[in-house]
């Protein structure tokens, strides 16, 4: 794995996120999009079996963005891979666009499922992983959740099911940025030690710096223990890459005006 190539991809993705957030002229989920960029770049750029020109390839690894509001991180990865063309990216959050605030299933564009209602993606991922087991598919299922999303009780129904069904072809990643819509997650609903919680449900759990591509790659290619699903708790910074967006909830869903766009794009270009 060429770390520099993935880092460059991540930088390109951050630029795309800022570009389309600005040009769409509406509020967008920028903070939670930026926090997952390095995870998405590592997955699509290095870890997943993925053919950017053949999105229906039977043996592709499946990716589900359970935290649907991370769409900017998803679209920018698919754009950087060459799956979503520039002219489609330019329609982000335009009237009638295929690219809205939350993903809408569109396999030609590489979008595997519709999301936006939190706490549902892991269940579908369990179904996909079970289907692969039943049909002998050699591909892997990746699903990305938000830490706030794990407030949803249905997440834990799926967590139990995955370990009960011994789905070792499933990797969940928690974007653990410490925030959710109303602010700091620990003050809203303290989730304690996230890694321990998943581990206590029988998952093969580990934590990683969610912005260290080398580390992300190491834990994501490792398939973990046999007969157990794997979860990677990725400690991330909401708004990562733009200093005034980092570790604040102000950019959870906000409009990127010209003034802030200019400031932001300069930082990303320099990095």
């Amino acid at each position, binding site marked *: 794995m060429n770390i520099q190539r993935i880092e460059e991809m991540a930088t390109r993705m951050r630029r795309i996120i800022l570009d389309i957030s600005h040009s769409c002229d509406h509020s967008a989920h920028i903070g939670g999009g930026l926090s997952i960029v390095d995870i998405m770049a590592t997955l699509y750029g290095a870890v997943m079996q993925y053919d950017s020109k053949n999105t229906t390839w039977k043996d592709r690894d499946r990716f589900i963005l359970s935290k649907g509001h991370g769409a900017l991180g998803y679209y920018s990865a698919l754009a950087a891979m060459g799956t979503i063309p520039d002219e489609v990216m330019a329609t982000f959050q335009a009237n009638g666009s295929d690219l809205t605030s939350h993903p809408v*299933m569109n396999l030609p564009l590489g979008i595997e*499922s*519709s*999301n*936006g*209602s939190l*706490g*549902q*993606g*892991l*269940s*579908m*991922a*369990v*179904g*996909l*992983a*079970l*289907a*692969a087991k*039943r*049909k002998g*598919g050699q591909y892997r299922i990746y699903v990305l959740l938000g830490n706030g999303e794990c407030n949803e*009780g*249905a997440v834990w*129904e*799926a967590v*139990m*099911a995955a370990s*009960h*069904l011994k789905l070792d072809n499933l990797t969940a990643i928690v974007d653990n940025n410490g925030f959710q819509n109303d602010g700091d997650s620990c003050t809203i609903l303290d989730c304690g030690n996230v890694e321990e919680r998943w581990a206590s449900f029988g998952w093969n759990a580990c934590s990683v710096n969610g912005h260290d591509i080398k580390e992300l790659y190491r834990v994501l290619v490792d398939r973990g223990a046999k007969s157990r699903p794997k979860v990677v708790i990725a400690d991330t910074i909401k708004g990562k890459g733009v200093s005034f967006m980092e570790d604040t909830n102000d950019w959870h869903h906000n409009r990127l005006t010209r003034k802030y766009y200019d400031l932001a794009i300069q930082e990303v270009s320099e990095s």
Partner: protein
Amino acid sequence: MLEINARSARQWSRLGSRPMLGQAILSLAETTEDLMVLSADLGRSSGLSRFRNAYPDRFVNVGIAEQNMIGVAAGLAKEGFVVFATSFAPFLSMRSSEQIRMNMGYMGLNVKAVAIGSGVSMGFLGNSHYGIEDASIMRSIPNLTVVSPADCGEIVKTIFAAAKYEGPMYIRLTGEANIPIVYEEDYHFEIGKAITLREGSEITIFANGTMVYESLEAAKLLELEGLSAGVVNMHTIKPLDTSMVDKAVASSRLLVSVEEHSVIGGLGGAIAEYKTALQNAPPQLIIGLPDSFGTVGEHRYLLEKFGLTAGQIAEAIINRHDDVLS
């Protein structure tokens, strides 16, 4: 292969809707390689024990977790499996309502959600287990097809048709053991195509589920009173077979809908929504469960309590018919 004849109809009626579901699924498995059946810890209550024993790899008990069940079903359907997911009507249509909306409605994934014990058929289990509002809720979700079979034979027809049907579906089973028999011989069943069971010149009764039988009996009673009432088995609530409503509007002085479901938003609501745009349409009498959480008891007791037996249906129709004519 399950064949409808006088003998099997009697046997199946004795079993009731839930064991019949299990039999239909067991039979379906013989010819459907990619079948997967999910239950939220109600495999036995859904008549699926024999299926589970015969095909352990095709059955998943997800535990008491309906929301997860629908998501898992959707993932399996996305990979090409023919998926049935079952639970009691309220747990399926309400607990996992939003999962059904996202996965089956929004994404249109090919899951068949089978609601057991709908209407007031769950007797002493009480209103927590009754399906009073499910058709109304499920019908309002885009892309969903909603079917409510009339008797055990039609449960078989529905399950086999559902397996071949591309698209998400909510199947609503009413009636318990000794469910009255509507069909004693094989017939043509097609999702979305209502079936005229009896011709009548003055009144048309639309019914589904257990109310098809009651409506047929009611029509006989009406005949004794000199009123000619037709009966249509509107097994598919959505998409509504509007051609059948058109026909009734053109020929009848009174339309009646009868369902073991709330008078709000079910079959009656669907017909009324369509009919309201038609010119010179006759009035409609909506017969169903009242908009309330009523008392609890045996199925037959409750049908009587709520005015859903043949005699009560006939009486309500006569009263309304007199009003219309006067």
